[in-house]
């Protein structure tokens, strides 16, 4: 009897796509025949657009089935059991056979995501079978300096957006003589449109804990805090389970791993919904129970952080890389990437892209490789207009620069930033003025209000963008936008304000013609800004069904004696209801 292991991808994206229903269904059938095959849970492996996903391990080969139903899964399992062969329907990945997503998986290099979608995140044993918690044992006799030297050799930089050398931060904290110190895992993942950290916490919580333990050993901390946003209930639950399991095995607590004098424990703090709390000084204020307002640095948290104690704050992805770097050797990590950007980076690719999901590639990979070779270009074959990096603090890389490599400096040269890993693909149907307005709406409402330029300057910029998208813009507005942007950048205390104008500046840099079309021609080339869209009924296509007239809320449609309809331009409020309703493609937009 060959071995058949069935694993359902139960990440929150998988569950939203129906994976829990599959698992429940399989559990029922499994009870009837528990010896023949095993049923397990895992997390998302990153092929999010094909979810729900069911992984099948058969004769040591992996087959992944996607876009599948409970009954479909049952049939796939039957086929394995009865015919000993993998069915090809629903097959999305296989290490053996051709399948639609083989390129998506095979073109990646996984360090941070190596366990995601492979192990059951709720079982510490599975993490240990993958070499988990070996890194702590490896460094148990190392001095703090030796640990930090090793991290320094890897060249690892912070993955939370700042790109600061992890070793430098650790060394500063390690030199502090205070007895109590903190390690904080920043799991606030504020960039709206990114989910790398969620996936790592859900899929490999022990990896993050182990990274924190090693950080604790390196700087001499006794406490760790995971600051996680409340929108991630499943991540919080999985981390909680992991912490309890680790405590049970004495991997957390007093004299952990039997190392005399090494006390380290971790607890979770749930965020309460404020983007600015991802900024490290605001995060500290929030942990202390205050309003999450940033404060001036220096003093840096590494010297004076939570409760005035030395504190190292690292991003989830930064931390999950640590155990693997220790296990596989810093020089192997540093071998990947470019001169100044080592290792790999995880990206969450979303928007108008064919294959939306999580992708990990070596630094130095061209953006175009990620978008086209791994993620298959756009969903409907439309031309890509730009790729947005770094969310509300970042900017866009236009289509003609997509060969830019993934490297901190190379990306900054385009006017965007590496950011934390959000990559939003935009095609011809995306209006760049609207996107700029979108990001500014976000930063404006998330500004904590401390600095005048960030609080009011962003509002003024937003008002101008609203004016432009509603067709009332003037050409001088563009200059005012640029002036305001520079003032906000230079007169804000924290990164939120300093970077808030970036999306607007970068849109102006590459897509000024779109702004001008809105202002001068009163036209939105992408047909997104409703106030600037004109509707017209094509007389030769109109069948006179009256449907458009019925839905028009403004009585702006009339019909002639042959029952052919016409839009009365002056009355039209440009809501698009008629356009949506017409089944004969007789209404066109321009």
């Amino acid at each position, binding site marked *: 009897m060959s071995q058949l292991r069935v694993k359902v991808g139960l990440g929150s994206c998988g569950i939203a796509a129906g994976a829990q229903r599959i698992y429940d269904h399989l559990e029922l059938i499994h009870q009837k025949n528990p010896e023949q095959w095993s049923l397990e849970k895992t997390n998302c492996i990153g092929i999010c657009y094909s979810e729900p996903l069911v992984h099948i391990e058969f004769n040591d080969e992996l087959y992944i089935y996607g876009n599948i139903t409970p009954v479909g899964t049952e049939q796939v399992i039957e086929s394995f059991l009865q015919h000993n062969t993998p069915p090809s329907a629903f097959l999305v990945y296989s290490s053996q056979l051709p399948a639609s997503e083989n390129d998506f998986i095979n073109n990646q290099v996984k360090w941070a995501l190596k366990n995601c979608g492979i192990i059951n995140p709720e079982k510490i044993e599975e993490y240990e079978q993958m070499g988990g918690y070996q890194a702590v044992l490896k460094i148990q006799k190392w001095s703090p300096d030796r640990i930090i030297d090793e991290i320094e050799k890897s060249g690892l930089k912070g993955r939370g957006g700042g790109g600061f050398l992890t070793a430098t931060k650790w060394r500063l904290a390690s030199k502090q003589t205070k007895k109590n110190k903190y390690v904080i895992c920043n799991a606030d*993942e504020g960039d709206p449109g990114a989910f790398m950290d969620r996936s790592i916490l859900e899929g490999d919580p022990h990896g993050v804990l182990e990274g924190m333990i090693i950080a604790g050993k390196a700087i001499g901390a006794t406490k760790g805090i995971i600051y996680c946003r409340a929108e991630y209930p499943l991540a919080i639950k999985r981390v909680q389970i992991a912490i309890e399991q680790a405590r049970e095995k004495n991997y957390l607590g007093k004299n952990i791993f039997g190392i005399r004098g090494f006390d380290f424990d971790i607890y979770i703090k749930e965020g309460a*919904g404020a983007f600015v709390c991802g900024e490290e000084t605001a995060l500290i204020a929030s942990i202390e129970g205050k309003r*999450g307002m940033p404060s001036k640095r220096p003093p840096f948290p590494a010297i004076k952080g939570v409760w005035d104690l030395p504190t190292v704050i690292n991003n989830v992805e930064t931390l999950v890389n640590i155990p693997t770097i220790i296990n596989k050797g810093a020089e192997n990590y540093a071998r990947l990437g470019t001169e100044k950007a080592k290792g790999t980076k995880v990206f969450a690719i*979303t928007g*108008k892209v064919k294959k939306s999901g999580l992708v990990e590639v070596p630094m130095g990979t061209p953006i175009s490789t990620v978008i086209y070779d791994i993620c298959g270009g756009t969903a409907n074959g439309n031309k890509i207009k730009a790729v947005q990096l770094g969310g509300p603090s970042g900017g866009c890389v236009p289509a003609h620069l997509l060969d830019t490599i993934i490297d901190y400096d190379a990306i900054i040269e385009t006017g965007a930033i590496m950011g934390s890993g959000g990559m939003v693909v935009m095609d011809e149907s995306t209006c760049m003025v609207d996107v700029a307005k979108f*990001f500014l709406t976000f930063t404006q409402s998330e500004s904590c209000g401390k600095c005048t330029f960030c609080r009011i300057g962003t509002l003024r910029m937003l008002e101008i963008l609203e004016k432009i998208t509603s067709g009332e813009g003037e050409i001088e507005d563009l200059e005012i936008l640029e002036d305001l942007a520079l003032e906000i950048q230079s007169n804000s205390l924290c990164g939120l304000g300093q970077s808030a104008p970036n999306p607007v500046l970068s849109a102006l840099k590459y897509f000024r013609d779109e702004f001008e079309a809105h202002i001068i021609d009163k036209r939105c080339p992408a047909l997104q800004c409703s106030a600037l869209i004109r509707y017209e009924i094509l007389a030769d296509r109109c069948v006179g069904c009256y449907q458009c007239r019925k839905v028009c809320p403004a009585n702006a449609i009339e019909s002639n004696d042959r029952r052919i309809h016409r839009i009365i331009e002056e009355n039209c409020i440009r809501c698009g209801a008629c356009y949506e309703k017409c089944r004969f493609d007789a209404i066109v937009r321009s």
Partner: protein
Amino acid sequence: MHIEKNTNKNLQSTECQIDISALETIIKDCKGVSGGLIPLLQRIQDQFTFIPPQAFKLIDKELNIPESESLGVATFYTQFKLNPTGKYTIKICKGTACHVQNASKIFDAISEYLQIKAGETTDDQLFTLELVSCLGCCSLAPAIMIGEETYGKLDDRSVISIIKEIQSRESK
């Protein structure tokens, strides 16, 4: 999409009927916990679905944290509600990925169907509508969350049928 300021943040003028002793127990429980104000407010909200106005006075009395401070914290974070919320909170994502996939249509459809705006609660106290930035399910954009359940790849029709399903389940 109308992104309105959260109307939920207007303090209620009338004191509402709540179980004061339950409130007292929670607050007294948090005595001496440093940095405990946010978790305390989270616990109160878990119990009452919002932070009742009486809470701020009690926190002042029991924990010596001035009302200005606790109210300041409660109004800073979007998570905290100062008015009762419905049995289900519908969180509509307005993150980047959802925005470029037409999340505003989802919002408009729900808002029109339930006849409430962002931050408001239906008359039958079943639904509260909320806009959030990113639920972490961007690959299934546009996405929403009802209670702790996330739904993705929605359009203006499928989202209404999800709500109708809950309505019919609740009316039984």
